């Protein structure tokens, strides 16, 4: 079968690899019909996530048709169209029972690695390095789906692949980011990063009662989509002297009530700390560039919430923790517990409240993956979201 295979930094290839088989009784095999490249795949592409190995199959946003199920799988059957959440839950451990699916105790076979790094390990992820279990990803024609009895969601005929696909990650991730803000009616929500997660966070902020949404980015195409599709007021940080001053002025001197860092470890910026990060990361003295996070912590109003769906992997410098403390901020973060959101968000799609396909800019075949990684990384061709048909 064809699959997108990681070979090294900025080197992914479409190759012929063996098809997966059922290994465990709760497995299913899914024939992928549509898959996407996620912004977090770029962290792998750029080499910022350790323990990637030559030959690893990428991709954690995928959907398709069940072609085989293990002996213990009864909730989905052969022929069902399903979406598969990117974080694998076992459904039986303490954390899955608490609905903290991405923190599952049992699905990361390499848990000892993450334990060494973070103290405790969360669950396995598709196509996201050996730290996260070494599971083969979904940018492939077939995928082995463990614990298919608790993770996949059946998609009804009336919902197209393009509408359903983003239930695997970015729509729930944006939604969880907004939900974790604890938005109160009328709140002003500022979102750093107008990539897919940021855009879905803006849409979700409105669903959860926001009074205003402000979007911060530097790419005009993205800011335009934030304004047009997500009714956001926009700040191009390359055109203002200070994002903090601008936000303060826009909010009558009080600051945004809720701030969302939808950028993560590879933030760009024009201020001194951003260059400092870039230099330290380049020489491997710092793992993550936290420019957007610093700005969000500094700009957030007193008693506000900073929610962090953007991915961080290691250590960050110069975090204005005094500011966060002095203002009594609440911080929320983490991988998305996708399984909590798939059904309610599917219902919103079915009711026509949102069409998640609004941010797709590139529709290609799987063979074009290497070119698409290049374009997406450079944000060339106004690229926001790439979907690939298998």
């Amino acid at each position, binding site marked *: 079968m064809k699959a997108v295979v990681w070979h090294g930094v900025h080197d992914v290839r479409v190759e012929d690899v*063996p098809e*997966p*088989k*059922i*290994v*465990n*009784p*709760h497995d299913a095999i899914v024939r992928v019909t549509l898959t996407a490249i996620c912004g977090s795949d770029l962290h792998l592409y750029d080499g910022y996530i350790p323990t990637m190995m030559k030959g690893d199959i990428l991709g954690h946003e995928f959907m398709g048709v069940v072609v085989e199920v293990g002996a*213990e799988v009864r909730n989905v059957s052969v022929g069902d169209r399903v979406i598969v959440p990117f974080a694998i839950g*076992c*459904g*039986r*451990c*303490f954390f899955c*029972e608490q609905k903290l699916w991405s923190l599952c*105790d*049992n*699905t*990361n*076979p390499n*848990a*000892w690695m993450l334990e060494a790094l973070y103290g405790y390990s969360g669950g*396995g992820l598709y196509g996201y390095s050996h730290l996260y*279990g*070494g*599971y*083969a990803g979904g940018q492939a024609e077939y995928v*082995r789906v*463990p*614990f298919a009895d608790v993770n996949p969601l059946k998609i009804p005929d009336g919902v197209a692949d393009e509408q359903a696909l983003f239930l695997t990650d970015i729509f729930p991730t944006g939604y969880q980011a907004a939900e974790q803000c604890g938005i109160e009616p009328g709140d002003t929500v500022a979102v750093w990063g107008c990539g897919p997660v940021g855009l879905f966070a803006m849409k979700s902020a409105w669903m959860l009662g926001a009074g205003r949404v402000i979007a911060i980015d530097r790419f005009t195409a993205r800011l335009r989509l934030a304004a047009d599709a997500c009714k956001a007021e926009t700040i191009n940080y390359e055109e203002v002297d200070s994002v903090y001053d601008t936000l303060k002025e826009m909010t009558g001197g009080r600051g945004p009530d809720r701030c969302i860092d939808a950028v993560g470890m590879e933030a760009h910026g024009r201020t001194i700390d951003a260059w400092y990060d870039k230099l330290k990361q380049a020489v491997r003295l710092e793992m993550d560039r936290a420019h957007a996070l610093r700005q969000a912590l500094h700009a957030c109003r007193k008693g506000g919430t900073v929610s962090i769906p953007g991915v961080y992997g290691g250590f960050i410098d110069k975090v204005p923790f005094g500011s966060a403390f002095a203002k009594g901020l609440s911080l929320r973060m983490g991988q998305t517990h996708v399984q909590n959101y798939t059904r309610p968000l599917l219902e919103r799609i079915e009711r026509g409240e949102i069409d998640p396909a609004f941010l797709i800019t590139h529709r290609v075949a799987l063979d074009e993956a290497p070119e698409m990684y290049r374009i997406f990384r450079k944000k060339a061709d106004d690229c926001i979201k790439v979907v690939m048909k298998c």
Partner: protein
Amino acid sequence: MNGMDTTINVNNPERWFSVVAGAALAAYGLTRRSIAGLVVAGVGGGLVWRGATGHCHVYEAMGLSSAPAEGEGDNVSVPYGRGIRVEKSVTINRSPEDLYGFWRNFQNLPRFMSHLKSVSVLDDKRSHWVAKGPAGSEAEWDAEIINEVPNELIGWRSVDGSQINNAGSVHFTRTIANRGTEVKVILRYDPPGGVLGAVIAKLFGEDPARQVQEDLRTLKQILETGERSTAARG
């Protein structure tokens, strides 16, 4: 710490091993006629001294001893303060009854203890264990249950004359607020190459504490989900 402490904390076979290996290292090191050779010779000399005096500063610093304790009888497999001791815990989302039942059937142990090849139950108290050793070798012994409280604990030890003297216990404690059961395992064994052998094995990646931790992780997977997590593709 008393630098001149000369208490005997190395057992006799290990002392002989130290003398022979140390002399060989010292001879090899001296023939190298280099700084590195001198260092090797120094280490060898230290081993000879360790064997001759029966006192090991490394053991002392680590609080270990492989020498028989004073007044120690023959009725314990691994006397207190000797050999390797590993203690690890895991919390499993099942009742103490389920966990006790699974463990009490010793035939289940090789399903999650990766160094075991098989355990066959001989009678209500006794079982025969076959373990995998380095380089395809095998070690076998008979074990007997010496202590058990249903749904709470099981203790066992190897019988006299075993290839590897060892003992172990497992304790099951229901957590407060019913958040699963804490499983605590304590294993003790006299490693074949002495404690020194175990320290060397650790340098080459064989760490018994880490091994037990991984075994308990597998036990948790099997008992919570019914399968062993794997990223294998078939």
